[in-house]
């Protein structure tokens, strides 16, 4: 393959990887606080629809993007309510959230199928986009992609170099000790759930505002679940999420191009690629990892004392 073909493919990989990146970072944040949220798929869909409708009504893609995050956080708040306030099973609540979110997006979105909304367009960054090779791949994208570049470093600094980040991690690892040390465990977990949901909503918003500019039902097509898998692949570290998200973005872009080029391979078999790769990535992570990278209290509710 010559660079003339490779550069557009890699640029497309970054673009298709961006919604997955947002969602993966959101799930990392939530899981670091000890809450497992399997509702990512549903949250992304609701975020995508909220963003689409807001952009359509107000004419402002920026407001749309923010609305995507807000509604993502709101739906994640339902998970918080069930798991943190009512101590429900986190796995089941997350699954229910995915069913609910998928239903909500399809139900409220059906009248708008095929309609367009103002979205984000490619905006080449001056100077940076002229850097050979990296420029056209990383800096000839839409503004949301640039926004997504900022989040892994911010998350990393927050988690490792601030008191609140330390508190959040402590709550995810040793909630009893954190409680004994006077930390507000539930408060931290609420922040983990809501801020994580906000990022997942951003991921969905990216799909409807930048990836496509029109509404179709089932827009996320399993990306939420891929994000859940990538958290494991990333060993719960923001930087590694970048690698995973762009890997999947690359596979999706490659599959899309192969389909468009009129290959003889049946499209249904091609579409299997990202899902099969997800299993492959999980197997790889389990083989590579020692298995104890997950936050120790992940998925475990804090039971009230007698």
């Amino acid at each position, binding site marked *: 393959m010559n660079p003339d073909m490779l550069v557009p493919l890699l640029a497309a990989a970054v673009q298709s990887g961006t919604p997955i990146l947002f969602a993966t970072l959101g799930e990392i944040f939530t899981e670091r606080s000890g809450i497992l949220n399997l509702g990512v798929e549903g949250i992304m869909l609701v975020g995508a629809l909220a963003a689409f409708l807001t952009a359509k009504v107000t004419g402002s893609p920026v407001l749309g993007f923010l609305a995507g995050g807000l509604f993502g956080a709101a739906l994640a708040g339902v998970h918080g309510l069930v798991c943190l306030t009512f101590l429900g099973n986190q796995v089941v609540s997350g699954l229910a959230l995915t069913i609910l979110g998928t239903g909500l997006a399809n139900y409220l979105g059906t009248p708008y199928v095929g309609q367009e909304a103002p979205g984000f367009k490619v905006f080449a960054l001056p100077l940076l986009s002229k850097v050979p090779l990296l420029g056209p791949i990383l800096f000839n994208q839409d503004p949301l992609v640039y926004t997504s570049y900022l989040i892994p470093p911010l998350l990393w600094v927050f988690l490792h170099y601030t008191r609140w980040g330390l508190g959040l991690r402590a709550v995810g690892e040793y909630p009893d000790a954190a409680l004994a040390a006077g930390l507000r465990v539930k408060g931290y977990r609420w922040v983990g759930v809501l801020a994580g949901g906000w990022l997942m909503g951003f991921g969905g918003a990216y799909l409807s505002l930048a990836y496509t500019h029109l509404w179709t039902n089932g827009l996320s097509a399993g990306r939420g679940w891929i994000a859940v898998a990538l958290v494991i692949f990333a060993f719960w570290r923001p930087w590694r999420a970048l690698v995973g998200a762009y890997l999947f973005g690359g596979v999706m872009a490659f599959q899309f191009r192969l389909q468009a080029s009129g290959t003889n391979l049946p499209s249904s078999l091609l579409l299997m690629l990202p899902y099969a790769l997800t*299993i492959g990535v999980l197997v790889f992570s389990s083989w590579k990892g020692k298995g104890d990278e997950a936050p120790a209290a992940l998925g475990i509710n804090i039971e009230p004392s007698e």
Partner: protein
Amino acid sequence: MIGLRVHKRREPLGWGSFLVFLAAIVLSLAICSLLLAIQGKPALSALSLLIKSAFFSAWAVEDCLVKSVPIFLCSLGVAIAFRLQVWNIGAEGQFALGAVGATWMALTFPELPWYALLPAMLAMASIAGGLWGLVPALLKIRLRVNEIIVTLMLNYIAILFLDYLVYGRWKDPASFGFPMTPEFSAGGVVGTIGASRLNWGIAVCIAAGLAMWIFLRFTRLGFELKAGGENPRAARYARLSYDRLVILVMVLSGMLAGWAGFLEASANLNRLQSSIMAGYGYTAIVVAWLARLNPLMIAVAAFLLAGLRVGLEALQLDLQVPAAFGEIMEGLILLTVLAGGFFTRYRLALRRKT
């Protein structure tokens, strides 16, 4: 200041838990009516139409029973895995593979009489569905790979594989481009009971449900399953062979969902087509959890959620409510019941904050 303090209940709540359950259902119905109102539909009459057209005629009840069959079988399988706290979300894919396996038999040996073909189809559905359960089980015990994501990804793959077959390889040349296989021969069709529209799948359900109940209640293995689920670590150290239990429940789970796929293709559609994937595998998860993994309660919950689907068809026709409304209801009911579980496990007491 006065605040609330949460205490663990020492005794189960008894009838109170039924009231909590009812309250949860009412709450989710209230939210649903709100959603109907948002789209300008008459909320109350829509809900009464939903219930009436689901349960208030013999024809409707028959419909509910027919739809309960795949939900019940998938849910029974899901429940047995959940008992061990193995999160099999893959009923949807195992259902698809079961349907594919049975269809392969029916299309390959169309000349066989029913007493040979139907058992062969059932066997093939068991193998295909069971295999789709075995893969995540092996990955889980050998490599500690998370079964939730693997089973979910296998759902996507199985559905795409089914599509690949019905859009290509197995497509009926006389189907005018519709993605479906040719109709099964008479020997490959599970018949109806007497003059009703119920098929013999109901008998399969009753047999499977009874077998499961006996298994869980009266056999050592069934007991181990419970012990293993309540405390996986203890079971492992007690040499109850947790790994084997995982394989057992996942294969069993896959087989049951595979049977559902076989029955749906053979008895209801008489062929394989992509519309066979109606989300029964996901509804089954809701049913299993609502029924607290108890076989008899699963039958009741499967019937009720089948009723939701039947009633929804009337809403779609009469009020143009999108089909996705059913998913909203399922998700809401599960969430509210899950949250309601809090009041059955804990009690609240007033306390004075200092």
